[in-house]
């Protein structure tokens, strides 16, 4: 199999590169100064692409690789992949569901605790020597706060399970009501926002869910409300979020994703009622290794004629 050409779109994880190199002929896209030159010399050798949410395998790439058979995404999100086109061309696509569910759910709770109990602010207070001058002041209790989940998939359900251990009542919005689920369902995000204190976005990014959290939802969430986003930056109308926070129409926000990563709006950087993370939802050694193993296993399965482990297309 080591003659099979696999193109990696951008640096992702050293362990993944090592494992791919052991089994395939690995081409690192970023090592080639000229993309045109790369395609001219090597496009005929590439039978697989490993992409992620930063740099997926878009239409242009598909067109440039005539022997492409499979795209294994080192992510669960598929918003950078033109699924329709792949299906059309008979190219297989895999992602890394489940292995990162726990980590993302953990970060969602961490963001909730962080915004309400002001961990970052407290830590900065101590590091800045301010404790000697007096107590930090109040933070807001987390246990028992009502939580609304937008998207009750694997990640949304995992968030709900954790929040229940803190006695938080759970409600949700989803494209359709889920049978066998004992949480309260709301038919739209505004209604959900009106009835919860903390709103968390945990759905996939699609055409329908782009900017699903706009001004109306934020106003419904209110001056004591907190928005948590562990989905995609594009789920939230970011300028509307910034005004809502600046004007006090929204109480706080915990964000792991942004519309224009890694750029984060100046105004957010100055706020003390927000927690800002650099898209670390699944960034643990354990999960990255598990995701890498899944990418490699899917590629191996494909090239030995076995069923894919986690196919999307």
């Amino acid at each position, binding site marked *: 199999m080591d003659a099979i050409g696999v193109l990696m779109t951008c640096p992702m994880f050293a362990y993944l590169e090592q494992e791919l190199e052991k089994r395939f002929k690995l081409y690192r896209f970023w090592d080639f100064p000229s993309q045109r030159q790369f395609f001219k010399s090597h496009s005929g050798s590439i039978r697989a692409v490993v992409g992620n949410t930063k740099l997926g395998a878009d239409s242009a790439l598909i067109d440039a690789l005539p022997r492409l058979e499979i795209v294994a995404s080192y992510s669960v999100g598929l918003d950078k992949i033109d699924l329709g086109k792949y299906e059309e061309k008979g190219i297989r696509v895999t992602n890394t569901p489940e292995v990162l569910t726990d980590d993302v759910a953990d*970060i969602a709770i*961490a963001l909730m605790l962080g915004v309400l109990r002001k961990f970052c602010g407290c830590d900065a207070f101590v590091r800045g020597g301010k*404790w000697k001058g007096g107590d930090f002041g109040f*933070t807001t209790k987390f246990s028992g706060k009502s939580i609304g989940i937008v998207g009750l998939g694997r990640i949304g359900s995992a968030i709900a399970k954790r929040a229940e251990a803190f006695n938080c009542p759970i409600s949700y919005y989803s494209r359709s009501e889920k049978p066998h689920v004992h949480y309260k369902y709301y038919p739209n995000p505004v209604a959900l926002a009106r009835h919860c204190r903390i709103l968390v976005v945990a759905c996939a990014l699609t055409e329908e869910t782009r900017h699903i959290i706009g001004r109306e939802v934020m106003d419904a969430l209110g001056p004591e409300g907190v928005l948590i986003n562990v989905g995609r930056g594009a789920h939230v109308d970011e300028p509307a979020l910034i005004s809502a926070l600046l004007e006090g129409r929204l109480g706080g926000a915990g964000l792991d994703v942004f519309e224009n990563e890694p750029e984060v709006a100046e105004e957010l950087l100055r706020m003390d009622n927000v927690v800002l993370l650099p898209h670390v939802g699944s960034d643990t*050694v354990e999960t990255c290794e598990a995701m890498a193993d899944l990418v490699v296993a899917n590629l191996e399965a494909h090239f030995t004629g076995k069923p894919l482990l986690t196919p999307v297309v």
Partner: protein
Amino acid sequence: MASHPQKDGAPPPFGRRPPRPPCVLLLRHPLQFSLFNRPLPDNFHFLKPWESPLPLDDFLSSDNACSAEAILTSGKVPVTADMLRRLPEVRLVVTTSAGLNHIDLAECRRRGIAIANAGGAYSEDVADLAVGLLIDVLRKVSASDRYVRRGLWSSEGEFALGSKLGGKRVGIVGLGSIGLKVAKRLEAFGCAISYQSRKKKPHASYAFYSNVYELAANCDALVICCCLNEQTHHMINREVLLALGKDGVIVNIGRGSIIDEKEMVQLLVQGELGGAGLDVFENEPKVPEELLALDNVVLSPHTAAFTPESFSDLCDLVIGNLEAFFSNKPLLSPVLDE
């Protein structure tokens, strides 16, 4: 109850005098009441030593003080044997703290003085903080937030990887009200819980260790939820921390002196201990300088119980305890001898 003065102005006959409100010595105006401008209950007579020109010692010896039947204190003002000896009428000590290390328990026991503390009023908030500190250390939450705010995400690229919480073996030191809540929360994250306590708890299904060294040797993280007393002082010493190991994480929401702070700091600096989430310190508000430079520690200024919800519950509890005691009803949050 109004009195009924005789027509000639003489005091009312015995038996019809209004009952004197119980006298309570207030060692410090409780923060929980003052922060909310909540008045102290008016069916008690509160002695306020800080309003007297006398130093506390002299005040305690004065006629005023010796009629005190109860003492209301916070965690910061000690109730010593000497103080208790000067107040022969005291039958109850109420503290607004969960901790009891500032009260001479032996003297109270000897005198048959009942004690009421904060009970479970803070338990949820403190448990939430413990869980938050553990996740923060493992997933580098505060460190990542700092990274973003300094503009390093765009200039330096991705931040370092954290460590997954699920599957971690977490040892809880002290499985009381707070420890149990910490356990319940962490189970939902997929942590394997074990604990150390003076005695095995019959109702708890978690693995029990009778000593902290064994617990540490078998865990990836320790969460300190016990109270501070003679036995637990510096219980988490160098050996225990070394047993926890290079990747081990310690979280402390109990009292600073349960951990040998100097040893812990040294091990963190040397990389012999993986990380720490600390809400309490041996010498608050002083925090060892070395900790301020470390990215694998998360520091909190003893705020675990500082939420309006906890404080409001605490006010209700203090009033409830005083009223129960002086109506000969059981205390709401008695500290029981074990």
